C-alpha cells in the first residue's frame, strides 16, 4: 500500500525517473565526469585566478565604475592601429 502511494506521488516518480536514468547511464557517466572537470577548471581555476571582473574588483560603486569608463572614453588616443 505504501509502495502504491509512493508510486503515485508525482515528486517520487520524478525523483525515481532521474535516479534510475542516472544509474543506468554508461557513456553518460564519462560525459558527466568531463562536464564536472571542465566546470571546475573554468570556475574554480580560470575564473578565480585568471579572470577577475575588472570593474567589480577595482571599484566599489557603480558611480566609480562609470567615472572610470568615462575617463577611458575621453582619454586622448595616440594610436589606434590594429593588426590586420
Amino acid at each position, binding site marked *: 500500500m505504501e509502495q502504491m502511494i509512493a508510486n503515485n506521488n508525482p515528486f517520487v516518480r520524478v525523483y525515481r*525517473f*532521474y535516479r*534510475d*536514468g542516472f544509474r*543506468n547511464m554508461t*557513456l*553518460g557517466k*564519462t*560525459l*558527466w565526469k*568531463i*562536464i564536472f572537470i*571542465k*566546470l571546475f*577548471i*573554468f570556475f574554480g581555476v*580560470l*575564473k578565480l585566478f*585568471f*579572470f*577577475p*571582473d*575588472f*570593474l*567589480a574588483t577595482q571599484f566599489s560603486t*557603480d558611480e566609480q*565604475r*562609470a567615472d572610470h*569608463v*568615462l575617463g*577611458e*572614453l*575621453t*582619454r*586622448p*588616443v*595616440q*594610436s*589606434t*592601429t*590594429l*593588426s*590586420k
Partner: protein
Amino acid sequence: MIENFDLTMVNWARAQFALTAAYHWLFVPLTLGITWIIAFYHTIYVKTGSEEWKRLTKFWMKLFGVNFAIGVATGIIMEFEFGTNWSNYSWMVGDIFGAPLAIEGIVAFFLEATFFAVMFFGWNRVSKGFHLFATWMVAVGSNLSAVWILVANAWMQYPVGQEFNPDTARFEMQSFSDVALSPYAIAKFVHTTSSSMMVAALFILSISSWYLLRNRHVIMAKRSIIVASALGLVASVFVMFNGDESAYQIAKAQPMKLAAFEGLWEGETNAGLVAAGLVNMDKRVDNDEPAFDFELKIPGLLTLMANRSWGTFVPGMKDLVYGNEEQGIMGAQQKMEEGKLALAHLQSYQQAKKEGDALTAEAHLNSFNKYKEYLGYGYLQTPEEAVPPVALSFYAFHVMVALGTLFILIFVAYFFFSIKGTLENKKLLLAGGTLLYILSMVASQAGWIVAEVGRQPWAIQGLLPVTVARTNLTAGTVQTTFWMFLGIFTVLLLAEISIMAKQISIGPEEN
C-alpha cells in the same frame, strides 16, 4: 594624463576572443542542427513503430549527447573575457545585453534541463507521445538559446533601439522590440540556425557514408541519409536565400563590410560580384594598385545583391573612407571630424559637471548629442583605419559561399541516389562524403570570420572601436590565458574526437 593604448594587449585580447569563439563554434552548430533531425527520426519511429528507426534515433541522440557534453559551457569563457579584457565594453553594453541574456538563461535552461532528461532517460519510461514531445522541445530549447546571443551580436553590428547616457557611460535600451526584432538580428538568427541544420545533416552524411563504405549498419545508414539529405537540401536552399537577405542587411548597415568581403575598393553602378579571385595583397585604399591579381566577375550581380535594383550604386571602400559627394556618401574622414567633436564635448560636459557649471554642461551636452552618431570615429587616427582586413574577409566569404553551393549539389546527389537505391555503389561519392562534416565546419567558421573580421575596427558599429572597448591591462596577462585556453580547448576537442570516434566505431545498439 596622456597614455598610449596598449595595442599589443588589444590584439592579444582579440586573438583570445577569436580562439574562444571559434572553439565554442566547433560544438554549437551540430547541437543546434542535429536536435531537429533527431526529432524527425524520432517522429518516424513513433509513426511507424519500427525498431530500426528507434535504434537509429538512439544512436544519433548518443552522438548529440557527446557533442553537447563536451561543448557545454565553453561559451561561458567569453563572458569571463568580457569582464576581464573588455571591461569598458562590458560596462557600456550591460543594459542592452542584460535582458536578452537573462531571458536566454531562464527559458533555455528550463526547457533544456527539463526535456533533456526526458529525451535521454524516457525510453519505455514515459509515453511515446510525451517522449517525442520532449525531443522536439530539446530542439526548440537549444535553438532558443541561440536567439538571444545572436540578438546581442546583431546589435553590435547594427546598434538600434539604444541611447548613450553620457552620465553613466552606458548604452541604454530604448526599445526592446527594436533590439530583438531588428531585421539584422532576424537575418542573423535564421542564417545561423538554418546553416547549423546543414552542418548537422552533413555530419550524418559523413558518418553514414563511412558505414556504407565499410558495409556496416547499412540499413541504418541508408535511412539516416535519406532523411538527412532531404532536410539538408531544404536547409541549404533556405540558407542560400537567407544568406542573400543577410548580405542585403549588411549592405544597409555595414557597407564597409560588404565592400571588404567583395574586394570592392571603388564604388560602381551595376557593380559585379567577384565569384572567385586572388586578392592583391599590396592594394590599399590610398593607392592605385589593382584590386586583384586574378578575378572572375559576374556583371551587375553585386548591385542586385546589395540594393535589389539594377542601375544603382554600390559604395566601395574608397567612397566609404574619403566620401563620395556625387553619390551622397559621407566618408570616414568627415565622420571622424564629427566623432572628435562628440568626444571633445563629452569631455567638456564631464568637466563642467565636476565644476558645477550647469549652463556650460548643458551646452556641451547638446553639442555632444548633435555629433554622437559618429562617436566611435572620434577614436580613429586616420580614415583608412575604418577599413577591415580585406583579404581575410574576402577569402572567408568566398570559401563560405563556394562550400554552401557545393553542399546543395551534394545533398541533391545523396538524395537522388538514395531514392534510386544505388547510393551504396557510388564509392567515390561516399568516400568524399566522409569529409563533408569537416568541410561544413570550415564553411561555418568562415561565416563567423566574415561577420566578425569584416566589422573591424568596431566592437559596436560606428560607436566603439575595439581599442577603446578593452581593459587597460598588460599584454602578458592576456598572453598567458591565451595559451592556457589553447591547451584546454585542444584537450576538449581531442576528447570529443576520441569519444565520438569510439561511439561511431561501436555503432548503434543491437536489439
